[in-house]
């Protein structure tokens, strides 16, 4: 699959958010489980958007 710059950027966003969620999840002493839910949910969302972006490009090439 061709990784366009847009795809890279969206994946990068997801990666940063996932890393942040992981930090809050793995260090419970930070005491902020809400950060895990929100930034983790955001990471999942942007991964989904990256998939949608890739699928749209794939559909266009096939069509």
């Amino acid at each position, binding site marked *: 699959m061709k990784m366009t710059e847009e795809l890279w950027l969206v994946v990068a966003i997801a990666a940063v958010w996932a890393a942040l969620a992981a930090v809050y999840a793995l260090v419970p002493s930070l005491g902020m489980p*809400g950060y895990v839910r*929100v930034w983790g949910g955001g990471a999942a969302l942007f991964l989904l958007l990256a998939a949608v972006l890739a699928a749209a490009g794939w559909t*266009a090439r096939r069509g």
Partner: protein
Amino acid sequence: MDCISTPVATADTRPRLTARLAALPRGDASLFRLLFGAALLALALGLAGGFVTALARARALNLFGDDAYRVLTLHGVSVFFYWLYLIQAALLLVLAAAENGRGLALRPLAWLGAALMLAGFAASEWISAIGTPLLYDGSPELAVDDPRSVGVFALGYLLLSAGLAAAAVSGIATLLQPRRRGEAEAFSAIGFALFAWAGFLIVSAIAATNAFLPGLLWALGAGPFPADHGTEWHILFHNLHYLPLMATVLVWYVLTQHLTGVTSIHGARLSKIVFAAYLVFVPPTSLYHMFLEPNLSESVRVVGSLLSLFVSVPTLAAFAIIVSSLEASARARGATGLFGWMKGLPWRNPAMANMGWAVVNMLVGITFAFVLIQEKLAPMLSDTFFVPGYFHFFAVGVLTQTFLAALMVILPALGGGALWRPDLLRRMPALVTLGLLIFGTAGIAAGVMGVPRRVFDVGYGGMAPAAWPVLMALVGVGATLFAVALSVSVYGVVRTLLSRRAPATAESRRVDWTDGQRGVGAVPAWTGPLSVAVLIATMYVATIVAFEIIQSLPIVAIGGGHGH
């Protein structure tokens, strides 16, 4: 010559944006007008609430107890949630539809989103008017004996969130349509920004759900008391700051292109990186809202403070892109003089005036925001009037004026009438800014002295410093000035929305700097770097003054607290 000689675009050279808006399906235009109308209603309610609050705090009105805090709640709920979210949803949809060129995709979902947001609006306003005053953060601990207030308040925000998510999904689908049809291989810079912004709006809905669902469940007897609301609120609160700022910069891109024909001279890729940077930098920079929390460890405070230094990166980069592109384009057309190129901008257009003054407000606001992100200054400034003192530069001066500028361009193109009295409207942003400078200067000074954010009578039985009531009176003067000027702008936009007259033969003035790209950027463009240099210098001064004050206090205090 110290200015640019530039042709004024004529009515028959209709720009891409307004041409596309005018061609949108009638059903879409109706949805957009509905959302814009609701957003303007929220702004009007919030403006009225804020004005009454400022007068009461200046002791020009006698308002105490629950009544006072109900008005303050209405102000905050109306402006920070319904004005800013409704206008963002509307702008996302309308700009996505224009980008697509064929209207909205998943149109029923967009209508469902609008219906949910309006239901939330009604619920929130109703409970804010009659319930226990919860302020805009809806803290359940203020109403432990009034679950109805907590529940309906939370329900309002949850409906808003659901509607926001639905509208954002429709926006994303709309942006992807040209790709799925094989008409485009990549987004434009604006298209990518809209795509990222839509995702961010959904994340904000997730944050709101995380913060307010526990309150609703508790009110229904289906969950424990949401004792941790304060922490969850901060996540949403942080999103609430930067989401509309991203939208503002996006609107600046759109308006710059519309009003001058100029697109970034640095290419779409850099702009896309900058818009992506909003989402990269926002989450790690969120801790500064919590510096006064007794549970936050010292190491987290230090790290949070350092990370917060990066919070302005995308905004300053976008500012530099826009200003350097404008200046370089103007110079390529022969503009000379250090700042003379700016005279060529279409300042007689109210949208340009609003956008230009919004930039000034942004630079002032950032200066003081960076005092607040220093964790060692938080014990002097957080929870004081310093906070509303500086953030009104953003909320009113930057965000509201920018979004009104967008409406001044979009509404006539959507089939409304011509813009109401543009010669009057273009003068308002300067008055708004003057009012904000009075409000902000007095408010920031009051905050530094310790005036609390949310106290109507700051006399404390004669124990408070004599300067406090004087400063709050000045806050009232500034608020009156900017409220009146902003009301004129809002009235003009509402008149335009409701007008059935055909648009005037000539659109509001624009300039066309699209020619003259030859050799663009070959000569220096100093406005951006000079503006940033002045900004940094004032940030240094403000920060040093704050450190000097806190160090001069007759107290030695150690330990930010710790708890269980």
